[in-house]
């Protein structure tokens, strides 16, 4: 009897909550230059809940997130090539509209033509991943050959950086990354997702080629060789691949000290060990699961996942970084 009464009370409470008056959040979104940002998605998540909402800005850059349960909502806006906007704990009250205007700020590209939001949108329009079964080699293994668009992170994982790594990353960031190897036409960060890259695969060898970074290729050996006992320290690490069923497992060690680990400017130690698992579940997609082990900078292994789409109409070009690198003399730190 008591149980029945309790359940009935719970149901009544749930119904009452569902029927409680809702509130809303509304405002306008502006671009870095102050112009209206039209067609931008504003995301909302109720704190401590899985409830989400989204709205798209229309004329005047205006949006309304309607029918929101009263409470604290986290608001975010992400536009390619601009700095992500986030505001937590926006209060929604029953029957009221909370005003929230959002001003987007420049990201790392500072809207430079060819690398700005318009370019990102134009690139996205060229994506047209073909359908079809996984292409296979003569040995029956998945063939990763093809030109692939920049992979999209599907699971960023939860890296737990050690204090020393955080400090170094902060110093590098405060100095505007002016000392990054990439700015000096040396290889970019190890786990950076390349804008466009090509794989050419044979039985014993997989080579990754790209045209926005030096030297433009990365070799992965599939012939069963072992990591050398007396290693040479390499900017891309010594990369060896072996098959586990239809998954190519790539083992990378012996990294050059000067290379940066990620785009957040974290360093690595001499204990860095990266394991990549590549799968091509169908013609148009290349899945990567990357595990970064480095007890010198991470409290525990960090695993993230990303997926690249095939770009069959694209071509990798030539990239001579040092031919006219005029930026170095103008770059300033903090």
């Amino acid at each position: 009897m008591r149980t029945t009464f309790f359940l009935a009370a719970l149901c009544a409470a749930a119904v009452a909550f569902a029927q409680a008056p809702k509130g809303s959040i509304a405002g306008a979104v502006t671009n870095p230059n102050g112009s209206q940002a039209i067609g931008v998605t504003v995301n909302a998540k109720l704190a401590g809940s899985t409830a989400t909402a989204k709205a798209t800005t229309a004329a005047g850059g205006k949006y309304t997130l309607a029918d929101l349960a009263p409470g604290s909502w986290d608001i975010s806006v992400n536009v390619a090539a601009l700095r992500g906007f986030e505001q937590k704990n926006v209060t929604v009250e029953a029957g009221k509209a909370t005003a929230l205007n959002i001003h987007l700020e420049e990201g790392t590209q500072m809207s430079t033509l060819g690398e700005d939001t318009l370019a990102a949108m134009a690139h996205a329009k060229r994506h047209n991943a073909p359908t079809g079964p996984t292409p296979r080699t003569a040995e029956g293994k998945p063939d990763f050959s093809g030109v692939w668009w920049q992979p999209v992170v599907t699971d960023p994982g939860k890296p737990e950086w050690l204090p020393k790594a955080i400090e170094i990353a902060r110093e590098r960031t405060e100095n505007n990354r002016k000392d990054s190897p990439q700015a000096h036409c040396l290889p970019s960060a190890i786990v950076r997702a390349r804008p466009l890259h090509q794989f050419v695969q044979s039985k014993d060898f997989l080579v990754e080629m790209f045209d926005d970074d030096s030297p433009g290729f990365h070799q992965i050996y599939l012939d069963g060789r072992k990591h050398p006992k007396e290693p040479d320290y390499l900017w891309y690490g010594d990369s060896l691949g072996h098959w586990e069923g239809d998954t190519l497992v790539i083992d990378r060690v012996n990294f050059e000290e000067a290379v940066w680990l990620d785009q957040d400017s974290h360093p690595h130690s001499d204990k860095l060990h990266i394991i990549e698992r590549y799968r091509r579940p169908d013609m148009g997609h290349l899945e990567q699961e990357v595990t970064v082990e480095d007890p010198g900078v991470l409290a525990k292994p960090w695993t993230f996942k990303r997926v690249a789409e095939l770009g069959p109409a694209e071509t990798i070009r030539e990239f001579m970084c040092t031919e006219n690198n005029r930026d170095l003399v103008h770059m300033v730190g903090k």
Partner: protein
Amino acid sequence: MSIRQHYFALAVVALGLSIAAPVSAHHSFAAEYDSKKPVTLSGTVTKMEWTNPHARFYVDVKDANGAVTNWELELGSPNGLMRLGWTRNSLKAGDSITVEGYLAKDGSKLANARSVVMGDGKKVFAGSSSEEGSK
């Protein structure tokens, strides 16, 4: 859920997560340019350098007194621009243009190009060449 639906759903979610990875980032523009100092320049193109890691062009800008200053403007990489349909001939010496950008932090006559508009109103290097630039 079919594979295609699965990846579409992932893409919808992942677009929000991918923003940390810019289209291309040879160097941090914040190291070189000041987002608090926008500048607009009008003048005549004197040279286009279609080179890596960043294409750049030069503009003679005349001030009110008639004195001419040659400015350097930086674009994205030629490979990225070519994928969008632009070429080394999209801008030529002699073209009259108005360019908007952010000033170099070190005080030199240098800015990154955020917008390039020809005398006839045509936008260059914006989005895809086939779309004739942005709205």
